[in-house]
């Protein structure tokens, strides 16, 4: 009888907490097209798998009449559950409770679940929907953020960390997502910035809306802060589930192996790429022509589109693709695409995912803006990331591989394990036009018909050097292959690289150019 009453009391207490910020606040949340924090977790995780902890945590703030206020769950929901039947840790800020603002106990709930995730070596998913620091709690709020950032950093490269921005995420709060591996945003819902429109207005006199300053579109096309863009929350959760189907659960595991499937027939590899290196094509079609089931999961598809990154499977196991995209900016490397490539390569390397690099680029993007934006140090990130990566590295040179671009794109010299080249490959110090103009400058200028001579010299150079055989003769290319053989050879290369061991000097860490 006594226990029953106590159980009843527990149920009553739970019900209270489950109200969150109350009916009115919940209605407001719903009217913005947003799910509530608990609904989000339920939608994301396997059905019925979520277990919530720290439900009865209360804040300890005393100043500004805070001691008279009850904030259920202190504005954040934490727990564990499963996705695809495998364990994940999750927290979701509850905007209905004090605007999801972060106070000391709120942050302690988050750091506690982060510690669990690291200890249990499982992915951490953070759903951000918060007005920022709880001003009434002063420096305790800042301490809370700092404790989160520290754990993000220490967990980086050990467990996957995923940030989902489903509301405002402003000020210091944005640095937690920025430290994690993948950031998901949703159209019209996500807002991220360091200083908001009102501050910008007062300090700088510039008018800008939240959406134009740091909306989902901006972060997926201009800033490169977001990796995945969705139209609504449901699509976003689907993307997270799909991502988790590809990545290993921690840095000591490999990705799950599923049944190998051939690519679908509608991508005929020979028909995709024009023989003329000046003509474009969509490199994603080449990826789809070699990858299992033609299923390519692209990351950052709206930003630095001259380079394509993403996951696919080869023989049932996850691989990361890095590919120049000739259809956009001729596939050159520049500041943004270098950054995009380097970070993805390091992700794959940290989590035991082999890297397949598809090469077709005329070099680095020329221009004052690029030079002044520091393309030297950004471009160097690509060299650093490829050289440092010890996972199996397979390179396919499709057409152009000129100059610094050739070296940077997972060349033999940066320790690619296998370098294949199509017969259309042109591995040279630069394009035939540029090279002929320099090498034969004298002959051209002194000729009776300089233009005719120039054309002849370009042709000569092209015949002699614009092919894969010069590099193959030196062993820089392992094999010149027919396009139709690409998948077969990549599958074999992955298979024989399975037990790859490479020794590097012992060090605390390198100093990459970032």
């Amino acid at each position, binding site marked *: 009888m006594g226990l029953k009453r106590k159980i009843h009391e527990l149920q009553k207490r739970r019900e209270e907490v489950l109200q969150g910020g109350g009916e009115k606040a919940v209605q407001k949340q719903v009217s913005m097209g947003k799910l509530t924090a608990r609904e989000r977790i339920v939608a994301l995780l396997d059905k019925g798998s979520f277990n919530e902890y720290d439900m009865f945590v209360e804040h300890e703030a005393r100043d500004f009449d805070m001691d008279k206020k009850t904030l259920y769950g202190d504005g954040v929901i934490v727990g564990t559950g499963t996705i695809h039947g495998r364990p994940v840790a999750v927290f979701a800020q509850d905007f209905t409770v004090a605007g999801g603002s972060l106070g000391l106990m709120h942050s302690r709930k988050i750091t506690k679940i982060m510690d669990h995730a690291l200890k249990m070596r499982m992915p951490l998913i953070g759903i951000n929907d918060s007005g920022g620091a709880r001003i009434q709690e002063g420096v305790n709020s800042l301490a809370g953020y700092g404790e989160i950032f520290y754990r993000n950093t220490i967990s980086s490269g050990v467990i996957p960390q995923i940030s989902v921005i489903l509301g405002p995420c402003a000020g210091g709060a944005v640095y937690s997502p920025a430290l994690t591996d993948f950031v998901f945003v949703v159209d019209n819902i996500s807002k991220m910035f360091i200083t908001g429109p009102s501050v910008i207005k007062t300090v700088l006199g510039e008018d800008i809306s939240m959406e134009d300053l740091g909306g989902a579109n901006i972060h997926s096309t201009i800033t490169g802060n977001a990796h995945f863009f969705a139209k609504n929350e449901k699509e976003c959760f689907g993307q997270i589930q799909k991502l988790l189907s590809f990545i290993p659960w921690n840095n000591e595991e490999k990705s799950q192996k599923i049944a190998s499937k051939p690519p679908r027939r509608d991508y005929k590899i020979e028909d995709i790429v024009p023989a003329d290196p000046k003509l474009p094509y969509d490199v994603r079609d080449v990826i789809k022509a070699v990858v299992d089931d033609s299923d390519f999961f692209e990351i950052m598809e709206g930003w630095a589109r001259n380079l394509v990154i993403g996951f696919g499977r080869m023989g049932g196991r996850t691989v990361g693709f890095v590919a120049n995209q*000739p259809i956009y900016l001729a596939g050159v490397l520049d500041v943004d695409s270098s950054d995009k490539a380097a970070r993805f390569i390091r992700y794959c390397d940290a989590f035991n995912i082999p890297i397949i690099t598809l090469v077709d680029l*005329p070099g680095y993007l020329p221009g004052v803006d690029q030079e002044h934006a520091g393309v030297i140090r950004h471009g160097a990130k690509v060299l650093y990331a490829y050289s440092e990566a010890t996972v199996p590295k397979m390179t396919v040179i499709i057409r152009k591989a000129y100059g610094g671009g050739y070296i940077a794109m997972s060349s033999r010299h940066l320790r690619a394990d296998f370098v294949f080249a199509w017969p259309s490959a042109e591995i040279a110090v630069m394009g035939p036009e540029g090279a002929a*103009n320099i090498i034969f400058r004298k002959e051209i200028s002194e000729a009776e018909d300089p233009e005719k001579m120039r054309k002849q010299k370009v042709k000569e150079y092209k015949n002699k050097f614009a092919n894969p055989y010069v590099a193959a003769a030196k062993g820089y290319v392992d094999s010149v292959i027919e396009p139709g053989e690409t998948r077969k050879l990549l599958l074999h290369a992955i298979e024989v690289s399975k037990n790859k061991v490479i020794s590097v000097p012992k060090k605390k860490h390198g100093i990459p150019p970032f």
Partner: protein
Amino acid sequence: MEAKKEKKPTAFLNVDGTEYKTILPEDFEQLRKYHMPEPEHIRSFIAGTIQKVNVKEGQQVKKGEKLLILEAMKMKNRVLAPLAGKVRKVYVKEGENVIKNQLLIKLELSKA
């Protein structure tokens, strides 16, 4: 983000003398414009308020001499003459709000 597939590659990018057919970002040309610095044009490096103007038109100034005080971000920023010269025109008054990159003062630089 949207409209990924709609655009066709019809532009050209020149790399080392070769024209590659491709798609260029909409603001590509604008992005690539570079302006030489003009030391005779004194512009606001940040939006703010002109707290004090220290010079008059026609006045000779030395390199590093205080031209005006631009208050922004709760800081009273001293704007100094980058080189020696004569003040040709002062475009702002004390108390005036200015936006970033607004022309404040024009100098006539002394011949070195």
